[in-house]
């Protein structure tokens, strides 16, 4: 095929690339060991050109993973020790390059055609454990949060680099599982690379540069058109987050001018000295891009071209652009809130596209030892309610902006000696409004009766102080809460961390509902009646 692609040829190749990325995603999670990947689907897969620009990502991959992979590749290409050969597989979890905290590990495979580097296949998945302290809210520096893997070769010339594998194995709690999951990622990359080379052969492509350029350009143009449709102006908003000791105020100012958009974060607080709530720049940027894509151009194929018209100005050293060695383990507790800022700022201009405040998902990591002394770790994912929009109630129990699924209760129980006594929607947790916020959830967790070892629960519980706000007159959702019931009474576990020392201790975690949209007086009578009948309020 000619190097100039017409709209037929381009569509054919582009669809093929997306299909290849989807195949990578399927192979990875089917072969994975940890339920955080195989059931919760906390992974993303992407095909990039030789310069690290995105060509296509897996349709159901985690959006933020897709958005940060090019950073990783560009860094590899700029390193002093950057020699790459067929059979090499790179690995890193550097939060400042990847997904903003240590558990998300990138596996990147360079693809060669006739000994020339033509592409990269990248794959980020959440490791079931990365070492470090269990109470992530107590970390002061990233050193306390687990193993930090600088970019290095997990495979060299097709052979496992046992030095690297050994380092990883020695620093995590479930070494066999963590290494096997990395293998699943590398195997899927390898299959995808083979498919990519077949495609290039079929169409007589020696490299992907021209194809990449055209794909990026098309997406860029489509995004520019979408921005042009937003009236020029300066849009501002502010929001509060739980912070560590007290709430933190974040502000955003969005400048829309013609077909470009720039986001500033005025008066952004300094990075937090402890608590893991710091967001690094690439994580903040990824969430800004993701939020804008959702409201401006949700249906166009996504790649970096989409984001060229968007500029970001985040003060270095601030909580949204934290510098090493800040603690970042719970970075979502700050980073996810840029969605609220962006939706809030653009609500007036794009009332039909935004949603009200989001009851964010909470990830509860349950750690302990079974009767045989084997250490176990389970990830109980509990999503909150999404904010309502101008036209529909918010979705209940929806994993936004993570896009991860939950791990079935029966799978957790089958693997480890825990008893989950409830996982249910919380009536009344959605904010009131013409459209009601989505409902949050409540779970009850304890040890299987007869277990004498303690259970440690460590969660990323957010919105315990500051609920999800309503939009355009809608009310706030119900906040989150974690308590522990024991024979001596009930105690608060506001940090999201609890140790259950007896099999009669029960942790009860309530995850927040979403904000309502529009004046509650405008809610249809039939909707209110239905809410009452079904116990949604």
């Amino acid at each position, binding site marked *: 095929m000619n190097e100039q692609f*017409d*709209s*037929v040829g*381009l*569509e*054919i190749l582009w669809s093929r690339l997306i*299909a290849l990325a989807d*195949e990578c995603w399927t*192979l990875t*999670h*089917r072969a994975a*060991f940890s339920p955080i990947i*195989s059931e919760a*689907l906390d992974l993303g897969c992407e095909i990039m050109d030789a310069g690290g620009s995105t060509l296509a990502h897996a349709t*159901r991959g985690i959006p933020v993973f897709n958005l940060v992979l090019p950073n990783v590749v560009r860094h590899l290409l700029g390193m002093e020790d950057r020699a790459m050969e067929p059979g090499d597989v790179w690995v890193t979890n550097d939060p400042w390059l990847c997904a903003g905290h240590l558990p998300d590990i990138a596996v990147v495979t360079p693809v060669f055609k006739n000994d020339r580097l033509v592409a990269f296949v990248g794959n980020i998945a959440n490791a079931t454990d990365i070492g470090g302290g269990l109470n992530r809210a107590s970390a002061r520096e990233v050193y306390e949060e687990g193993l930090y893997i600088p970019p290095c070769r997990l495979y060299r010339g097709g052979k496992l680099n046992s030095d690297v594998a050994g380092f990883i194995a020695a620093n995590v709690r479930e070494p*066999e*599982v963590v290494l*096997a999951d990395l293998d*699943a990622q*590398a*195997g899927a990359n*390898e299959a995808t690379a083979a*498919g990519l080379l077949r495609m290039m052969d*079929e169409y007589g492509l020696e490299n992907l540069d021209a194809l990449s350029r055209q794909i990026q350009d098309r*997406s860029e*143009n489509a995004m520019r*058109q979408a921005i042009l449709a937003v009236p020029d102006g300066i849009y501002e908003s502010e929001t509060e987050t739980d912070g560590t000791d007290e709430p933190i105020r974040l502000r955003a100012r969005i400048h829309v001018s013609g077909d470009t958009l720039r986001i500033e974060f005025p008066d952004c607080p300094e990075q937090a000295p402890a608590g893991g709530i710091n967001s690094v720049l690439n994580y903040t940027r990824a969430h800004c891009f993701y939020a804008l894509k*959702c409201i401006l151009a*949700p*249906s*166009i194929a996504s790649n970096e071209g989409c984001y060229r018209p968007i500029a970001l100005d985040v003060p270095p050293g601030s909580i949204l652009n934290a510098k090493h060695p800040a603690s970042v383990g719970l970075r979502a507790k700050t980073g996810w809130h840029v969605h609220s800022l962006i939706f809030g700022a653009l609500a007036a201009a794009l009332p039909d*596209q935004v949603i009200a405040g989001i009851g964010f998902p909470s990830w509860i990591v349950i750690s302990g030892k079974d009767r045989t002394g084997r250490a176990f770790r389970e990830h109980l*994912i509990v*999503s909150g309610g*999404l904010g309502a929009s101008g*036209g*529909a109630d918010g*979705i209940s*129990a*929806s*994993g936004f902006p993570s*896009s991860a*699924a*939950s791990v079935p*209760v*029966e*799978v957790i129980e089958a*693997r480890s000696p825990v*008893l989950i*006594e*409830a*996982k*249910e*929607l919380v009536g009344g947790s959605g904010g009131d409004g013409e459209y009601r916020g989505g409902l949050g*959830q409540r779970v*009850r967790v304890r040890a299987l009766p007869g277990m004498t070892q303690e259970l440690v629960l460590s969660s990323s519980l957010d919105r315990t102080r500051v609920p999800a706000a309503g939009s355009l007159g809608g009310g706030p959702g119900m906040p989150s809460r974690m308590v522990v019931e024991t024979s001596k009474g009930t105690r608060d576990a506001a940090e999201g961390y609890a140790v259950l020392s007896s099999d009669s201790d029960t942790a009860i975690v309530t995850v927040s509902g979403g904000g309502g949209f529009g004046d509650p007086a405008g809610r249809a009578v039939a909707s209110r009646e239905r809410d009452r*009948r*079904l*116990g*949604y309020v």
Partner: protein
Amino acid sequence: MSARYRVGVDIGGTFTDFVAIDQESRRPHVHKLLTTPGRPADAVIDGLRELLARLDARPDTVDLIVHGTTLASNALIERTGAKTALLTTKGFRDVLEIGTEQRYDTYDLRLQFPEPLAPRDRRLEIAERTTRDGVILQKPRSDEVDSALTALSLDSVEAVAVAFLNSYRNPENERAIARWIAERWPSMAVTLSSDISPEIREFDRTSTAVANAYLQPVIERYLGDLSERLEEMGVERRLLLMLSNGGTGTVELGRQQPVRLLESGPAAGIAAAAYYARRQELPSVISFDMGGTTAKVCLIEDGRVATTSTLEVARVHRFKPGSGLPIRTAAVDVLEVGGGGGSIAAIDSLGLLRVGPRSAGADPGPACYGRGGVEPTVTDANLQLGYLNPEYFLGGRMRLEPELARRAIEATLDSLGDATKAAWGIHSIVNEQMAAAVRVHCAERGADPRGSTLLAFGGAGPLHAARIARILGISSVVYPPSPGVNSAFGFLIAPLAVDLSRSLPSPLDEVSWAAVNALYELLRAEGRRSLAGADLEEDKIGYRYSADFALSGQSHEITVDIPAPDFDSDSAAELTARFREEYQRRYRRLPAGFGIQVVTWRLTVFEKREITEMAARSTAATEQERRSRQVHIPEAGGWIECPVVARPGLAPGATIHGPAIVEEAESTIILLPSEIATVLSDGCIETRLADVPREGRAARSKGAES
């Protein structure tokens, strides 16, 4: 011969189709009439009467009726099932509504999910609990169950599903509820999750149980009505139902487990494809059925249709996985993609030519139908390129308007150049989309399309197959006869078959082989009971064994064929070898240091049936008028005067060299340059590329069948 006819009946949305095969002459007779949605049995009975009258046959000449219906699928889509309640473990009332929590479209802030079949006020909690080991921590209390049942009866509920946590390990608490209901409320339709889907993962199991309960009264009424009226009519021979797994089952099975009837329509077409694959001893076949709005792809290896254990039905967005209701049941593993003759072509916001998934449907249909459609479709493109004969569409029952097609293409796609260039773009993109779908489907199953045979049918399949095969590196395509009635024909050749399974998770080296042998005894007996209504003799029953394995700690299993169970302590070694081979084929890497876990033991019980062969429709060549027309074949240089051959006049053994067009009433085959077509004795047309040698044809045998 008194009982000489076997009849296939397919109730579709618009038509109820009949195919009767005369077992003496082996000739098929086709009949159709409008479906009667209010009382679907009406059209079945009326059509059967008309068909028998046409054949001048008495009702008692009917030996077998195989029936396929979309009633179950439609009841889920149109929400016309029973008023259904769910009894569930305290704390887990919202399992259906919470679902997976995953966002099937990551950028859509207003995702929609199907409403639960049992709304929240009909989901009642019972304080009870079973652990992961099957230990009962708490039994249901009679007073609580009594008050729940009273509440449901006051609400005039028609069906009840019971889905308790961990019931896949121990069904006792669910069974206790079933006994209570049977005592207090004998007429109530009850589905236990531990009966319908005894497998781990509460959302899938609950969803399956509720869907089954929801369908039971509807299917019960319909099948009761139909059986009664067939009996009145004097057709007292056996009635069988087409199942999701590509086999057929008894009426009793359909009444008890109506989820097994879901998506049985596509399964029938694939059963027919499998028949040709076996008959022609093709080791690897990709069944490709392309119709008006979608195309369906399925792998058939060694004559066996690939099956899966999960279906997703009633999707909010037809082509978005995750937007529907999961149903755990053995089903033909079909990939459905949004591309067919009616798929609409348009330029999207990126300036790319996109085809589908939006479809012009039957009304207004493609622009060339002249019914008011103005958007260009795949059919319009195929007409513009000269592939379709405007005078001979649907055998001449409909005239196509080339001028309307051209105008629609030019009006929408002027940026692509002239109408022919744009039409070629549409045609090529559809081919690529289909090839991509086939490729992903094969990759997910560890198969490679190269070296396979493409078996193409459906109204649009034969038009696109040759080029799709080229893209995929496939050198041989087979076109079965009468592609339009392939589904109804599938009913007649699908064997009785029921899939059974039991989860019994254990490390492979700790399996109690005596227990597995005993388990298989039970499953075989259960399978024989399921087929018993069909009066099968023991020597007509076959068994196929497989099991789901994973590396220890892994979530997803892979299904591997296993030998017939006469297991002993040496069996672990053989099963390990089979698993490792399949694992490496799929995932490329086998991580070291993990034991092997066996999770579920599976059994397919099937009827070893003499296959009814259809006679080729024409045994002697009829003199063909030499015909040709202008057709756009870029592989031959562009517009050429292309020979046109009428398929009905072709005798077995006839050969045709491409480029050529082969026409019949329901579809059109395009032969490319360097392709040679041969008519086979079963009426199929087989093509292969002149420059590619014929693949080895010996059927490989895998797995155990006895």
